[in-house]
């Protein structure tokens, strides 16, 4: 039994503790919600485009030729696509007001999925309402904690976010280096032999892009398929840049190499580049794709694609199927400008000759990234003054796993004429010489 004085001391202690806690609460100062941003940061002064971002684009009030938007097949201002979108607007209005599970599925969506599956010659396709969310939701639907994913170093940010959401083990291999990938796979095999029970339930995936956004190179798909069967890993192919570009009919890198489409477990692409719409899709066998209808987060918990965008994509697909000749034309233009831009002093061309989106990097870096970025921005601004609209490739410097060097991204589209390509090449040459020397 505590005496009166002991009880008194206890009460005082509790009171003191309470007051101490209140003091701690008073004293605590959190960081500001957002750190201040310098007023002259380039991102705060976007290039404002007035009017459609098509072949002739009006940037900050000046009319230029567009070498920056990913409008590969020139379908952004195609009258047929606009007419199809208009017809859909008249029938359905704009929004769908619901996710796919709750009366947000329109017959246009089912049509588009059907057409995409038939075009890519797979069993099934599933559409998402945003390009970024497509691969970022597809990867975590299959790969969970404890699974292993082998991914290329130059993978784009959407893939990185998908991998982060999946909580799996990530193993990076050097860009397009199949020997490095094989080494990692062999190491994993040795690990498996130590613990066969765990190996029986650990899924393995290889995630690659058809045409890499960050480097403009093509992945060596035939070797990848060989490695797939040898080491029993599934391949997820991200074809945002190669869909509608590579291959005889625009079916992507599988058609380019002549590989059976069933060998690739999942092909994901976005419709924002070649198809001039918004959104993305995944296609493959029903066994694989159907799973996303219940576990793809961006599919189940998000509103469906507005029908006018789906109708625009269907019409764009129709155009692609009717004129398979445009792909050869695009390849020819890529080769032409690639050749024309070789030999600029101070800048080197990074990317394959048949990639419509390639980079111009500084041959020798000045040593600081900021300085490089400023030099390249100077080149871009001067080209803009001479009516060639270019842009630097933008990255979030602190968030990227393997930050690519600063570069100017040049995009070739079907609508650019040969004179315009020549003029662009010579403008860039002149400006680069003026700025870098």
């Amino acid at each position, binding site marked *: 039994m505590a005496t009166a004085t002991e009880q008194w001391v206890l009460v005082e202690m509790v009171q003191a503790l309470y007051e101490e*806690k209140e003091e701690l*609460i008073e004293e*605590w100062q*959190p*960081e500001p919600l957002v*750190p*201040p*941003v310098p007023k002259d940061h380039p*991102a*705060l002064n976007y290039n*404002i*485009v*007035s*009017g*459609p*971002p098509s072949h002739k684009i009006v940037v900050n009030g000046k009319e230029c030729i567009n070498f920056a*938007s990913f409008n590969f097949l020139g379908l*952004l*201002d195609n009258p047929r*696509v*606009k007419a199809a*979108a208009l017809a859909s*607007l*008249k*029938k359905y*209005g*704009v*929004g*769908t007001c*619901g996710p796919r599970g*709750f*009366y*947000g*599925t*329109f*017959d246009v969506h089912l049509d588009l999925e059907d057409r995409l599956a038939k075009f890519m010659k797979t069993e099934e396709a599933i559409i998402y*309402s945003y*390009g*970024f*969310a497509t691969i*970022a939701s597809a990867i975590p639907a*299959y790969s969970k904690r404890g699974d292993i994913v082998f991914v290329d170093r130059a993978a784009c*940010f*959407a893939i990185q976010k998908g991998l982060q959401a999946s909580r799996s083990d990530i193993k990076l291999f050097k860009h397009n280096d199949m020997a490095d990938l094989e080494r990692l796979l062999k190491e994993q095999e040795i690990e498996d032999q130590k613990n066969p029970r765990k*190996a029986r339930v650990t*899924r*393995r995936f290889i995630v690659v892009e058809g045409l890499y956004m960050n480097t403009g190179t093509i992945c060596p798909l035939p070797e990848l398929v060989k490695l797939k069967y040898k080491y029993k890993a599934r391949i997820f192919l991200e074809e945002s840049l190669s869909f509608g570009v590579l291959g005889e009919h625009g079916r992507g890198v599988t058609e380019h190499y002549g590989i059976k489409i069933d060998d690739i477990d999942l092909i994901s692409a976005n419709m924002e580049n070649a198809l*001039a719409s*918004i959104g993305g899709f995944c296609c493959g066998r029903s*066994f694989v794709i159907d799973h996303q209808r*219940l576990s793809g987060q961006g599919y189940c*918990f*998000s509103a469906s694609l*507005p029908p*006018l965008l789906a109708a*625009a994509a269907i019409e764009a697909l129709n155009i692609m199927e009717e004129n398979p000749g445009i792909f050869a034309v695009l390849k020819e233009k890529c080769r032409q400008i690639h050749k024309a831009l070789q030999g600029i002093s101070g800048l080197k061309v990074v990317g394959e000759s048949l990639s419509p989106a390639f980079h111009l990097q500084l041959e020798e870096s000045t040593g600081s990234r900021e300085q490089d970025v400023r030099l390249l921005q100077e080149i871009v601004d001067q080209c803009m003054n001479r009516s060639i*609209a270019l*842009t630097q490739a933008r990255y*979030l410097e602190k968030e990227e796993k393997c930050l690519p060097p600063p570069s100017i*991204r040049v995009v070739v589209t079907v609508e650019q004429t040969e004179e315009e390509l020549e003029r662009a090449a010579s403008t860039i040459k002149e400006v680069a010489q003026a700025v870098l020397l």
Partner: protein
Amino acid sequence: MANPGGGAVCNGKLHNHKKQSNGSQSRNCTKNGIVKEGQQNGKPHFYDKLIVESFEEAPLHVMVFTYMGYGIGTLFGYLRDFLRNWGIEKCNAAVERKEQKDFVPLYQDFENFYTRNLYMRIRDNWNRPICSAPGPLFDVMERVSDDYNWTFRFTGRVIKDVINMGSYNFLGLAAKYDESMRTIKDVLEAYGTGVASTRHEMGTLDKHKELEDLVAKFLNVEAAMVFGMGFATNSMNIPALVGKGCLILSDELNHASLVLGARLSGATIRIFKHNNTQSLEKLLRDAVIYGQPRTRRAWKKILILVEGVYSMEGSIVHLPQIIALKKKYKAYLYVDEAHSIGAVGPTGRGVTEFFGLDPHEVDVLMGTFTKSFGASGGYIAGRKDLVDYLRVHSHSAVYASSMSPPIAEQIIRSLKLIMGLDGTTQGLQRVQRLAKNTRYFRQRLQEMGFIIYGNENASVVPLLLYMPDLKHAWTKGIRKTKGRVMASL
């Protein structure tokens, strides 16, 4: 138990739980044993409405039958799996390629147990395709299954003029084309459908700037930024605001996009009970006093994630109390108004207006344009320095394409309508009619004896059925009645 009219559960007696009061005293309401306090506000000048929320518990026999239903379903599921494995029953599900049979299986057996055996039986209630605009009446495509929901076949017939209680078309702005949508047609013809670039590169159109200024004016804040997808707005901006060393206090029933955004940010996440300010206060006190778990260093920032109206519960967040807590403990507040913007509040400005609070008190106001505005996309609004920071650091601004121009124009048109800038009072009338309809519908359902969750002013009405097989009986019953109501399940 089951009414012949449609498969609902009566809760027996009807308690009169609607005590309206214009005073500011505390009242206790009793429904089926659950006591909900009438909320009292400290200062009578900013909020003097009584919050009436109800989360009735089902009677005991209903709970017993529900568990029995799931138990029997599971047992049958095991039996069918056994039969399928031994080849006695044909397996209709898609299977792995035979060249890849020796790969590690893509799905764990148990992951798909629920899908194969329980979900398949009642799968025809979801994903119903429609073929008209999602207005108050819409057309549903008729679809039958010949093999117990494994595959569907369209008969080609269309069920016309079905009353729509399933689409989130709160203000009826997602409708068939009429002359007032002329501007959208013009923008579509001028700009096209796609943008093919990101905000930082060549994707910022003048339409986006116009839209952002209008959104900021609508919400009465300094600045706003719009994004192409509502889900992505959360999952790509929360990681930009908080990171390692920060604390996120998230409500139990937050939407998947908020949970994904919180996870991707790398911050520590702690969950507080749904809408329970005592639970939140306890977490806040512990966080400020004790700091990070092992190192005891102070947290860099604390962010509270709540939603305006919760879509699965129909409850409205207790905003005045949370704002008082946030001020005391110096935390930051992020409110996701996906279901409440345009639908709640006397002029449709969201939960801040509903409670009569100043929108500047909430640090980050987020919302989507999918529901009340009949378009797609999301926005984040708040102080200018917040929005400037997001313009520079948001993942969506750097890597994802911007909003399509006709969609932006539809949002501009909807905003002008709701704000009354087009010269009519149509917008205001719609908001007021929505509020009246909500209250009437909830009141009538409660009079009929259904169990409804949530706040009386929330337009999302969860009607509890409890048993999985009742869902099936319910839709069959509803389809047969003349009214052809299509409820969302």
